[in-house]
């Protein structure tokens, strides 16, 4: 199938490049257009009228506008994993190979099965679903069935689940003056501001700068608008202090003059070239902002005003002047203002027939009437359009005479036409200023909402401030540019404003909803996309949804992809009339970003996929990788989970092997990720005393101590060892998970709470590679490489001090720190060396340990061994446990005050029936215990009921926190929290894991399974 060709293309008019012919397809039909077209202009050129189906009634719809406000012409653009639903044809630059499909129709656009909905339209008023489908029974079954069909019928385009192959980018920028919108007002503002020498950014969402100048036949400074634009653009580019960003939409105005904008870097291409982003998100921080965003034309509301061929008058003119496309040949213009006359005039001059202008104003137009008269264009004063006739496309327009109250009188007439160009006047595009909270107000004279008093450092200029004629726009923009520059602290420049002339205009009339046609009613659409008709607005009124916010939510008025850019004002006007108030009293709904929809990829930016969050690596990362370890995430870090000995070794086998090797001889583990904080100063010990629940003043130099910290509310915050390296010098370690939080905690207390304490704290986590050597042969192996006496007398348990590896060797030595501390419960040493030496030190230890079959072990074995020893860790320190719950209540010093001391004493934190850490073993000695299981009394019932329905839940007396397997004891072990657990040692209870149907009898035991006297670590 091929199309009829560019039948609606004027021979000369337009700013397109006729030397560059572009091929594209719409619904599979190949067509051509020209460089400079949008998809919409190319479709119109090819005579395509029907482009989509509406949301609810699946009515045929055509192109309605030529801009971002488009409610109807939404297409599914591109193919495969680049598919983009709901894309406005009016904003898609035409490129070679473009593929677009219509939406919301099946099986085809011309024949759409769901168009039968139109027949039932009167049974589907706004909000009908609130009144139906409740079903005869009090459950959700019936509704769930209906919901499925409603969901299928609703929605617009179809998205894909295939990942988007394109990249997105982000950039921040700063400037003194940001000008949003590059129409005449914006350009005038930018050139004025730029003359001050400050940094100016001028952005516009269209492909080129120029705004309505691109769409009109105007002259500025005595030049044709195209020439003037070229001149001004050249001058701005040459100035050096101006950045021009076309294809860039300012979508959100955020606090403190931060504007979010998205640049469509490659959307005019079939796909981005390598290393180029598809789109770029700009965060622009401007000292001053000029909003020159123009205005949006509103429709008139009459029966079947949604027929293809009923368009906005400004758009009809825009298509003609910018692209040389005549959307119709016999045109009726229907309007409440002067500006629409220009459409009649321009189209007449391009050869179209103007059937007539239907003007709802009793007095008709201002001076522009002369231009119309000169061309023989007739206009009817005090008439309104009442119905667009024709099924798939408009064939004629029925009109009625209005009396002075705006009511219909007389008999209905019809004008034959293939295009209705309608205009309900222009509403300033005040979205961005409104987003800041500046409250828009109604100007009854100008018949539009104007931006409210600024809440931020911004001003509106040109049409978006309700200044509508070209000379005034230029002057207004110029003044705004000067003012902005001055407000930004720049010198007021000497520069002339651009000049133009235009006839005076008389004000429009606040008249949108036209009378019903005689005899043949039809829906009068307000919100085309959401199929909200004037009758729906009145229904909302009747039912009490009279606030505009209720109106919106009840009828979905303005909730589509266009956010009501062409429907809110007429809708509010109908509500105002029904309530008998002025539209200014109903106000507007809240304006929210984005101004137009923004690709989520652009907001997400490049840090997704593998780059989603940084990956932190320890200095021994490469070594672990070479060993083929399995990794586990620990916050942003990756740590070895276990080192499989071969492809078939399971996680369980591996960690048991690693555990046995360590306990049997020697193991080594990378513990670099623990937080390390260097604490110095005369008050360091006092500070530690306040942070930790136990005392620090007696700790001698060269010794380490285990410490526990509470939050202010008395709950355990973190634990770790802190070592005294010098008189006034300590090294604190924190858990991996809390490293950052504890550093911030310390900063807060030193800077804000106790600034009088003379303490300096610095994170040194990154400086040191840390590794623990554990097992009965740890000393023997270590002795081979360090320069200090490791005997228990010289370097007992909890000793610490400097140590040098390979001292005096020609190959080089490594100066580090050694700590005799143990998490595994074995004789163990923790070695810290400067990070760049981490791998060398590790390899040295591997070599020294070779004769003892040294085994690297990962997080699983580490966890298993600490469980065997009953050491608590993350799963027990879950932010709800007290020191006493963990069995460390006695560490709480009563001789000093510390963070959390007071609130830890609250009644519910010291009750006897709190959960306490205990050990758990399966009664049968075999069955594995599971983390995440709950604990109940052994005779608890099997089936639970809900309390809410009067049933009986199964009371939980605790939960399993950590599980492992002790190879030494040869049975599974676990730690758990059990109500009053320490008093119930030896008792049998039941482990429940109903998610997997498990119920296992377990016995409560002491939480230390291996070497309870600690002989090994002292050995």
């Amino acid at each position: 199938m091929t199309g009829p060709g560019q039948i609606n293309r004027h021979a000369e008019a337009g700013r397109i490049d006729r030397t560059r012919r572009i091929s594209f397809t719409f619904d599979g039909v190949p067509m051509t257009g020209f460089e400079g077209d949008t998809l919409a202009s190319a479709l119109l050129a090819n005579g395509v009228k029907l482009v989509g189906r509406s949301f609810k009634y699946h009515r045929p719809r055509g192109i309605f506008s030529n801009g971002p406000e488009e409610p109807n012409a939404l297409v599914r653009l591109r193919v495969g994993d680049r598919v983009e639903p709901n894309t406005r044809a009016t904003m898609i630059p035409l490129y070679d190979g473009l593929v677009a499909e219509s939406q919301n129709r099946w099986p085809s656009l011309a024949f759409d099965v769901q168009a039968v909905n139109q027949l039932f339209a009167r049974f589907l008023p706004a909000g009908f679903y609130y009144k139906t489908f409740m079903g005869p029974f009090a459950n959700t079954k019936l509704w769930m069935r209906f919901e499925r069909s409603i969901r299928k019928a609703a929605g617009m385009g179809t998205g894909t689940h295939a990942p988007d192959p394109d990249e997105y980018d982000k950039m921040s920028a700063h400037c003194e003056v940001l000008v949003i919108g590059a129409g005449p007002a914006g350009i005038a503002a930018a050139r004025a501001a730029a003359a001050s020498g400050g940094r100016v950014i001028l952005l516009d969402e269209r492909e080129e700068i120029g705004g309505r100048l691109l769409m009109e036949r105007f002259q500025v400074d005595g030049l044709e608008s195209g020439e003037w634009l070229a001149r001004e653009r050249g001058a701005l580019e040459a100035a050096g202090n101006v950045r021009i960003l076309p294809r860039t939409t300012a979508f959100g105005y955020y606090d403190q003059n931060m504007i979010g904008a998205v640049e469509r870097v490659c959307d005019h291409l079939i796909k981005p070239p390598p290393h180029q982003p598809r789109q770029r998100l700009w965060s622009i921080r401007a000292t001053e902002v000029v909003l020159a965003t123009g205005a949006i034309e509103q429709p008139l509301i009459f029966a079947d005003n949604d027929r293809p061929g009923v368009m906005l008058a400004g758009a009809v003119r825009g298509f003609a002047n910018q692209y040389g496309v005549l959307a119709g040949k016999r045109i009726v213009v229907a309007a409440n203002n002067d500006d629409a006359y220009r459409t009649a005039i321009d189209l007449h001059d391009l050869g179209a027939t103007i059937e007539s202008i239907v003007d709802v104003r009793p007095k008709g137009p201002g001076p522009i009437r002369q231009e119309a008269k000169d061309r023989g264009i007739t206009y009817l004063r005090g008439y309104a359009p009442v119905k667009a006739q024709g099924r798939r496309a408009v064939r004629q327009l029925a009109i009625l005479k209005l009396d002075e109250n705006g009511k219909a009188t007389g008999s209905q007439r019809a004008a034959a036409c293939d295009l209705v160009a309608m205009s309900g006047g222009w509403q300033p595009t005040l979205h961005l200023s409104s987003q800041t909270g500046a409250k828009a107000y109604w100007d009854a004279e100008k018949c539009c909402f104007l931006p409210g008093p600024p809440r931020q450092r911004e001003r509106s200029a040109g049409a978006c401030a309700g200044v509508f004629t070209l000379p005034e726009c230029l002057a207004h923009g110029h003044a705004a540019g000067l003012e902005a520059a001055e407000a930004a602290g720049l010198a007021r420049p000497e520069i002339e404003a651009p000049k133009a002339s235009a006839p005076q205009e008389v004000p429009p009339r606040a008249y949108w909803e036209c009378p019903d046609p005689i005899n043949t009613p039809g829906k009068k659409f307000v919100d085309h996309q959401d199929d909200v008709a004037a009758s729906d607005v009145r229904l909302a009124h009747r039912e009490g949804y009279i606030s505009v916010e209720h109106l919106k939510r009840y009828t979905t008025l303005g909730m589509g992809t266009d956010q009501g850019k062409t429907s809110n004002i007429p809708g509010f006007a109908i509500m105002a009339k029904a309530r008998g108030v002025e539209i200014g009293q109903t106000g507007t709904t809240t304006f929210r970003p984005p101004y137009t929809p923004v690709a989520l990829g652009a907001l997400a930016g490049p840090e997704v996929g593998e780059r989603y969050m940084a990956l932190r690596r320890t200095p021994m990362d490469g070594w672990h990788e070479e060993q083929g370890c399995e990794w586990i995430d620990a916050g942003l870090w990756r740590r070895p989970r276990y080192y499989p000995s071969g492809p078939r070794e399971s996680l369980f086998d591996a960690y048991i092997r690693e555990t046995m090797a360590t306990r049997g001889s020697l193991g080594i583990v990378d513990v670099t990720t623990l937080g390390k904080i260097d604490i110095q100063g005369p008050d360091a010990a006092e500070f530690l005393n306040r942070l930790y629940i136990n005392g620090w003043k007696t700790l001698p130099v060269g010794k380490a101590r285990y410490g526990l910290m509470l939050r202010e509310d008395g709950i355990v915050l973190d634990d770790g060892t802190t070592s005294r390296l010098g008189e006034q010098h300590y090294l604190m370690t924190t858990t991996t998970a809390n490293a950052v939080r504890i550093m911030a905690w310390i900063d807060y207390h030193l800077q804000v709470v106790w600034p009088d304490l003379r303490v300096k704290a610095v994170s040194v986590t990154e400086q040191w590679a840390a590794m623990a050597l554990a097992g009965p042969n740890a000393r023997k192996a270590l002795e081979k490489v360090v320069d200090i006496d490791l005997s228990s007398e010289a370097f007992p348990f909890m000793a610490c001090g400097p140590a040098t590896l390979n001292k005096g060797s020609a190959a080089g030595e490594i100066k580090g720190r050694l700590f005799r501390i143990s998490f595994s419960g074995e004789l163990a040493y923790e070695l810290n060396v400067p990070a760049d030496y981490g791998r060398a030190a590790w390899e040295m230890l591997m070599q020294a340990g070779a004769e003892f079959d040294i085994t690297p072990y990962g997080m699983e074995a580490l966890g298993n061994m600490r469980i065997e020893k009953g050491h608590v860790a993350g799963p027990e320190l879950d932010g709800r446990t007290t020191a006493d719950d963990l069995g460390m209540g006695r560490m709480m010093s009563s001789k000093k005050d510390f963070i959390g001391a007071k609130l830890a004493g609250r009644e519910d934190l010291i009750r006897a029936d709190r959960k306490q850490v205990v050990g758990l073993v399966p009664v049968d000695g075999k069955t594995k215990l599971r983390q995440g299981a709950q604990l109940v009394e052994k005779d608890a019932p099997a089936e639970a009921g809900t309390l809410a329905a009067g049933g009986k839940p199964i009371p939980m007396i605790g939960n399993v926190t950590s599980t492992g397997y002790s190879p030494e004891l040869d049975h599974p072990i676990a730690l758990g929290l059990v109500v009053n657990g320490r008093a119930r040692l030896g008792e049998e209870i039941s482990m429940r894991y109903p998610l997997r149907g498990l119920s296992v009898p377990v016995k409560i035991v002491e939480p230390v399974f291996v070497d309870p006297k600690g002989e090994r670590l002292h050995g």
Partner: protein
Amino acid sequence: MNDYSVWSVLRGGLTGQRHWKPAWRDPDPQPSYDAIIVGGGGHGLATAFYLAKLHGVKNVAVLEKGWIGGGNTGRNTTIVRSNYMLEGNAHFYEKSLQLWEQLSHELNYNVMFSQRGVLNLAHSDAQMDAYARRGNAMRLNGIDADLLTAEQVREIAPMCDFSDKARFPIHGGLFQPRGGTARHDAVAWGFARAADRLGVDVIQNCEVTGIDVEQGRVTGVQTTRGAIKTKKIGLAVAGHTTQLAEMAGLRLPIESHLLQAMVSEPLKPWIDTVVTFGAGHFYISQSDKGGLVFGGDLDGYNSFAQRGNLPMLEHVIQCGVALMPSLKRLRLLRHWGGVMDMTMDGSPIIGKTPIEGLYLNGGWCYGGFKATPGSGWVFAHTIAQDRPHALNEALSLSRFETGAVLDERGAGPTPGWH
């Protein structure tokens, strides 16, 4: 008053839908009421409804400073679930879920409660264990829960990243099939209409500006529409809880924070359940209109602005795309914010206050929508009987003093972290 049914809609089709009456009256405030509920959100309206329906207290006014449902009820991401671990929360939210299951029927208003399931994803074994702990507790409390494998997750949410490019691969997830979403505005409207039918005065555009307290008991309120006498005041003002409490001289363990929410352009069905990301701040569902509704973390600072900033928006969407790479080409339609009443333990407060006749319902953090019917149900009980119901006993204000806090996350007394 018209009953809502298919028949009445069909009948209306023949008469231009002209027979409908206002869903609620627009009364002027009376000089006095037996009870006054401040706040015309879901909670306030539900409270009034249950007071009238279950406790025979019908001379009730709901005072709303703006339009009903315009607070957090009208701006939330509508997730309904009862997947709580701690008993003080679990039974209460389960009660609420059970009320949801019959709510449309009870109100004769379709609140479109869609039990499409709520899926919380886990990205490590440790997270799976944490979810198992919660899921097992739910089961033992008689609440539905399933622990899904990664493969099962894939069936439900195929758009998630299961490739080797995922920074935090999906290990599985906790699923509550009975959870889901509801049409938030309809909840406010449905309760308002039902309460109105029982005689409750729903009064909009009426801001409470003062609470009269004499000798430790309340006597009335001051409003922008005059003074009103009453002996019982129930506060249900969400983000403004501390403002109202202050009128009665109370300081509370609550801060108001800003939470943003977002909606995409409308699409044909794209995702059929509620999914939450476990390795970042992101959760998503699809409204019946077709928009993908999603959100993430608090902006992080105290705020009453109902309007957020770009960094959190970017962050939430970054998390979303990390989880679902095919979101990139879809578009953001609108984003907004709400004022969250964040408590110091992340759980709500429903109960009595030190002032006689003043009852508190607040501190909902980002989870109060699902509580709406349950909250109204227990709050009505508390107000009518002057003592909490067993289901809200644990949610008392005094728990902070005694230490019996309900801290599901274990985040401690920093409201922004819950």
